[in-house]
């Protein structure tokens, strides 16, 4: 086990991707994730990898599509408005079953918005803006160690499922520093090894091959396309069984249960302690996988609970999944800040108390 180092979130995510085997990074600058392309431009060429600054986010996502189709291990990053431009590519890669790991360091919108942290891209990440029936697993770390571990693991998950995997960080996680233990370096895959590891990849004609692979997302015959969509949805069904990640604390005897992810979850943890000092038992459901969403975690909420609160840095997006999880058993309320405003724990505690009072207890 290597030792703890103090790292900035963006640099830690970049290093985790390299250690997870990423050899190809394509990016276009945008705050608050600029340290990632900066780090990659410095580190990847030194370590037998390739960095390309694309001319746009659209170009970056299609460079990822190409390198992923050729069997490369690819990492791309951007922030909210840049991810919006990449959405088409995610749809294409899902259809063509091409792996890539994409990470957003989200900021606040809509529009160019601002550069401070936001979570108003929950829909963007979990519902996507690309066309057609497709799904992308989304993991949302709430501290840097978890971010490092998720990026590292996702470099493998994306190959295993032959589907893009998405990491949802935010401006606070990208910009903050905290100690992390970095995982060990995975061996880089050499081009001549790809054919054996990824028989589907575009490696050209081999010495004795008469047939080469094709990767397409165009299927002009309705029956063919239907069959293909059903095939990738079989995969999504399996992902829903295998990829659900959630942390729950104190929900069994809670007066109130707060649901929060990422940055909002770590601040809420401190609010839970403040509320405990005042005799209010607060449970926390922290979805780590935003898709597949941990709906099952809500079954453990008992009749002692008066209200379930969705705490978000948005005008309320995850709350739709929270309501699906609650399934009418409890009232659901929103606790939100937006525009880049990040509330302190005391504010979350006070607003939780107020919501609880409105519920008559």
């Amino acid at each position, binding site marked *: 086990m290597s030792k703890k180092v*103090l790292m900035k979130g963006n640099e830690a995510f970049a290093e985790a991707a390299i250690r997870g085997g990423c050899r190809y990074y394509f990016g276009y600058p945008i705050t608050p994730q600029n340290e990632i392309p900066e780090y990659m431009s410095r580190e990847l060429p030194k370590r037998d990898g390739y960095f390309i600054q694309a001319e746009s986010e659209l170009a970056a996502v299609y460079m990822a599509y190409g390198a992923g189709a050729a069997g490369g291990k690819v990492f791309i990053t951007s922030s909210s408005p840049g991810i919006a431009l990449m959405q088409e590519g995610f749809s294409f890669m899902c259809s063509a079953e091409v792996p890539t790991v994409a990470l957003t360091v989200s900021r606040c919108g809509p529009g160019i918005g601002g550069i401070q942290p936001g979570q108003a891209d929950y829909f963007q990440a979990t519902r996507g803006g690309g066309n057609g029936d497709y799904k992308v697993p989304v993991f949302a770390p709430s501290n840097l160690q978890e971010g490092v571990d998720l990026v590292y693991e996702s470099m493998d998950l994306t190959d295993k499922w032959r589907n893009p995997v998405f990491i949802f960080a935010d401006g606070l996680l990208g910009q903050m*520093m*905290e100690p992390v233990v970095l995982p060990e370096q995975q061996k880089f895959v050499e081009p001549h090894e790809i054919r054996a590891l990824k028989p589907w990849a575009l490696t050209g004609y081999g010495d004795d091959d008469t047939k080469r692979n094709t990767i397409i997302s165009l299927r002009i015959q309705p029956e063919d396309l239907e069959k293909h969509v059903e095939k990738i949805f079989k995969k999504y069904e399996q992902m829903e069984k295998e990829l659900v990640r959630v942390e729950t604390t104190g929900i069994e005897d809670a007066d109130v249960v707060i649901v929060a992810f990422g940055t909002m979850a*770590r*601040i809420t943890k*401190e609010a839970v302690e403040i509320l405990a000092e005042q005799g209010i038992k607060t449970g926390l459901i922290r979805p780590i996988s935003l898709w597949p969403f941990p709906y099952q975690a809500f079954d453990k909420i008992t009749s002692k609970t008066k209200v379930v609160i969705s705490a978000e840095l948005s005008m309320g997006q995850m709350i739709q999944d929270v309501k699906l999880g609650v399934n009418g058993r409890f009232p659901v309320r929103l606790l939100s800040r937006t525009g880049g405003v990040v*509330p302190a724990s005391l504010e979350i505690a006070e607003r939780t108390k107020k919501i609880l009072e409105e519920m008559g207890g």
Partner: protein
Amino acid sequence: MATHKMFFAGSGGQGILLMGQMVGSAAIHEDKESTFFPSYGPEMRGGTANCTVIVSDKTISSPVIFESDCVVAMTLPSMLKFEPTLKPGGVMFVNTSLIHQEPKRDDITVYKIPVSEMANELGNPRVANIIMLGAFVRVTNIVTQESMEQVIHEVFGESKAALLDLELKAFNLWKG
């Protein structure tokens, strides 16, 4: 040990973020937990700069704070902004070379140090932050002098080795 929450604040170019990062690094050397969160924006040199640093012996949940145990103010606007965040009994360090106004609070301890002038006397105005860091470490003991000197060796180790002696001298300048 308790949890220490602090703000380092000043203007861009004063080495504010470096001070915060160095405190975080020193804490890691002592096997403590630490978080550092910078204000980030489109400002460059001359704009405002501040960072939140937490040092604790237990896991830190929120890196965002609403009250502080310690404030290091290198300019007047930063003192005005962060003095009200101090808990009663808190400690504030004031760069009196640039701050000619008295703090308002009487329930905190204030250390008034003309670090910009002291840095000029040392021959390099850029070490004002390190002089202040020395005062911060010796007064608060949130991290030890030894671990901070180790961090100074790391930060000014290779590419900036020419600065190392000056930085160590600056760090040890303020004796109280």
